[in-house]
């Protein structure tokens, strides 16, 4: 009995010890901090290396590139460079850096830092998956892929401590947007050399040059950033900082928002959307936190154009004509998505391809599609081989694919199978070309039609449809070389016409972003006047302009 008692006692003490330890170290007040639901845990915080959206939400507020962006229009505004000049041929950019530019530890930030950072991002050793963001710079691609080994041949020149000159391969109209992209943020050489690999991105060492700096990084718990007094525009900042919470469960996130422990959410469970829409309809004049905002991306299907009968453009066109895009956005996705009438989202940097694809399926479309299918040798869908439509887990993909399967069955008599794969297996299948039809999404890297169109050139890394057209490639090359913006968009229009005639893809809708924004969250305009929270097309978060009201 005594032994038994001591066993009870010991285990009791053990468990008591476990629970009386305070759960977390940090119970600091969240006063004046913006609380953000940020999807998944970031992979890392090295701006030269990361590729994901959650990472960029954080890094865009911790670092600043040569240029920055207007929080709403995304037009280039001065960043670390207070001014710049562009040569006549649009190939040489000279940036004049602020004399008072500093890292968050007070060390001066100079043109050398930028040169070192860009070469690091391009280096073989770092193996950055986003190194191609620097490819507009002369010889950057050759250096990155080891075709040249001498870094002095890369078009980056330090004229003096505060002047940086970048020479480009060819004119790049969106280059000043790229210079504010996270791959081109400066990274602190003096810290990285002391704490190599990724050690420098830990909260105890990390140094940055933006409006905020890293304070805490607790894995899967939160990332806390606080204002950086060394930042040149520090006086403008109205908040104390922000917490980014990696919340993967949409229901957990919305409950947190409703309980007031988040100011912004990453998403909204689709079950809730109809309810919110009804609430908005009932009282349209009062504030509702549910927001639908435009997003620079297209949801589409890829055709494997090597696989018969999908190698026949008539078959692809018949399939395209009989997908009711309007029905998909109105009854499945629900988030105000726009049915795709072309591939490039409307009004991408002022470029809109005239509406070409049908929004909905009428008798005319069905008739044309059936004729095309008959011409291709499948009257009323007879003899059409069983192909699979491949999709990955998550979101509404399954619902969309099932409804498209129905549409083709009903309108064409074509029976398509559905094939579901886990994300990495799915990616592998698409990369290896082991699919017939596959769902896809493309989010633009920068607001310019080029990011939607240059991917379809022959052997383009993201093409993956095995489709190519020499005339298409020629037009994309012409656009790249064009100096006149109107002529450039003209070439894009001609190229997109070919894309929509040949249809290696089946565009479905233009993405939107749905999220919740607390009424306490406001923005400040240039003059420091309060205004309603406003989104931008890349869904970038500009905490510098945010403020919280009671």
């Amino acid at each position, binding site marked *: 009995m005594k032994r038994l008692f001591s066993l009870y006692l010991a285990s009791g003490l053990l*468990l008591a010890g476990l629970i009386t330890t305070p759960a977390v170290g940090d119970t600091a007040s969240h006063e004046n901090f913006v609380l953000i639901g940020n999807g998944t845990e970031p992979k890392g915080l090295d701006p030269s290396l990361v590729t994901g959206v959650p990472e960029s939400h954080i890094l865009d507020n911790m670092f600043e590139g040569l240029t920055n962006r207007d929080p709403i229009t995304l037009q280039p505004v001065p960043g670390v460079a207070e001014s710049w000049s562009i040569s006549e041929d649009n190939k040489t950019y000279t940036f004049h850096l602020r004399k008072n530019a500093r890292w968050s530890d007070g060390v001066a930030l100079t043109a050398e830092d930028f040169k070192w950072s860009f070469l690091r991002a391009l280096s073989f050793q770092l*193996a950055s998956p986003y190194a191609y963001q620097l490819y507009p710079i002369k010889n950057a691609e050759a250096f990155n892929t080891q075709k040249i080994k001498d870094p002095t041949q890369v078009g980056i020149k330090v004229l003096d401590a505060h002047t940086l000159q970048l020479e480009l391969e060819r004119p790049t109209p969106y280059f000043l947007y790229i210079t504010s992209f996270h791959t081109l943020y400066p990274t602190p050489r003096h810290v990285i050399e002391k704490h190599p690999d990724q050690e420098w991105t830990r909260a105890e060492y990390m140094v940055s040059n933006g409006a905020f700096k890293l304070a805490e990084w607790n894995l899967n718990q939160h990332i806390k950033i606080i204002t950086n007094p060394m930042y040149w525009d520090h006086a403008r900042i109205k908040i104390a900082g922000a917490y980014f919470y990696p919340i993967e469960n949409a229901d957990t996130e919305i409950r947190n928002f409703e*309980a007031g422990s988040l100011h912004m959410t990453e998403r909204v469970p689709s079950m809730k959307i109809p309810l919110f829409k009804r609430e908005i309809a009932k009282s349209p004049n009062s504030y509702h936190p549910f927001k639908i905002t435009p997003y620079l991306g297209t949801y589409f299907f890829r055709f494997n154009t090597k696989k018969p009968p999908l190698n026949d453009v008539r078959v692809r066109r018949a399939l395209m004509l009989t997908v009711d895009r309007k029905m998909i956005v109105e009854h499945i996705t629900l988030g105000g998505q726009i049915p795709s009438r072309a591939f490039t989202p409307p009004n991408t940097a002022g470029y809109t391809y005239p509406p070409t694809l049908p929004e909905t399926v009428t008798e005319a479309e069905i008739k044309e599609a059936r004729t095309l299918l008959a011409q291709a040798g499948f009257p009323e869908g007879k003899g059409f081989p069983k192909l699979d439509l491949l999709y990955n887990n998550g979101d509404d993909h399954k619902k969309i694919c099932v409804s498209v399967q129905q549409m083709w069955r009903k309108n064409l008599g074509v029976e398509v199978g559905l094939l579901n794969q886990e994300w990495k*297996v799915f990616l592998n299948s698409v990369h290896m070309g082991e699919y017939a039809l596959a769902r896809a999404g493309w989010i633009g890297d920068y607001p310019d039609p080029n990011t939607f169109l240059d991917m379809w050139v022959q052997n383009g890394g993201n093409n993956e449809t095995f489709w190519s057209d020499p005339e298409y490639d020629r037009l994309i090359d012409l656009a790249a070389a064009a100096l006149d913006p109107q002529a450039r968009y003209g070439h894009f229009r001609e190229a997109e016409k070919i894309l929509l005639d040949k249809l290696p893809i089946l565009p479905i809708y233009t993405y939107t972003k749905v999220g919740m924004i607390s009424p306490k969250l406001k923005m400040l305009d240039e003059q420091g006047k309060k205004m309603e929270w406003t989104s931008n097309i890349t869904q970038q978060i500009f905490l510098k302009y945010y403020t919280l009201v009671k």
Partner: protein
Amino acid sequence: MLLYICKRILGMIPVLWVIVTLTFFLIRLAPGGPFDQEKHIPPEILQNLEAKYHMNEPLYMQYAHYLGMLAHGDLGPSFRYENRTVNEIIFETFPVSAKVGGLGLLYALVIGVLAGLFAASRPNTVRDYIPMFFSLIGICLPSFVIGPLLMLLFAVKLQWVSVSGWEKPTDIILPAITLGTMYAAFFARLTRGGILDIIRQDFIRTAHAKGVRGWVIMLRHTLKGGILPAVSFLGPAAAAMLTGSLVVETIFNIPGLGRFFVQSALNRDYTLVMGCVLFVAVLIVVMNLLVDIAYAFLDPRVSYE
């Protein structure tokens, strides 16, 4: 006893080696790799990445390399979490899971054993039916139902605790209850069954015949033997609870180890998958050993001498 423990610990090594080997090759059999992403990576960059993680070497070399690291207690760098090693991730997140699991286990044991005792003291009466009815519900209701229900009631409606997260000391309560409820139900049923078995034994009848009072028999004689089934279950239950549950940790957004089990496999984070599997394997083996040792104390029929 000491000899027995030593033998068991030595016996762990081949078991763990088999687990490591199977996991190592199985995870690499799955299509897709740690560097697959939606946007294309130029082949040159992919080669650099693979070289960085020794993935360009033949598989047997990678395996030898991994075993070599393991021998030094190094689980390697994570593929997904760029600035952390697997050792760090486990040491950072296991204490969180262990706290939730520890409290959950305590709750499950106290509620479960008490309910089992209560039910067994008057078998097949209302006093038995009511706790057993609730334990059946506890077993049937999955944590993804209990969790959100508790959250709605205590966090959204009553606002006694936070909805989710790991910021305040009270954040441990709801996840621990969610996690512990199913185990409490199991413990209740196992305790009841164990005690009903013992009650029918001769030595209990003898004690009654000698005129020992009911509750003394219950505490001194019945409980000691009757709790054995629950103790055997305690080993795997403790291992499972202390290492965290994916569902509970996702619902309550807790930075524990449980989320990494599935997440690391989905990310093809090879080293982290290996680390998690190995860590849990060690924990299960150790817990089972502890249970066997506890048996020696509780059951006079068991001896390892």
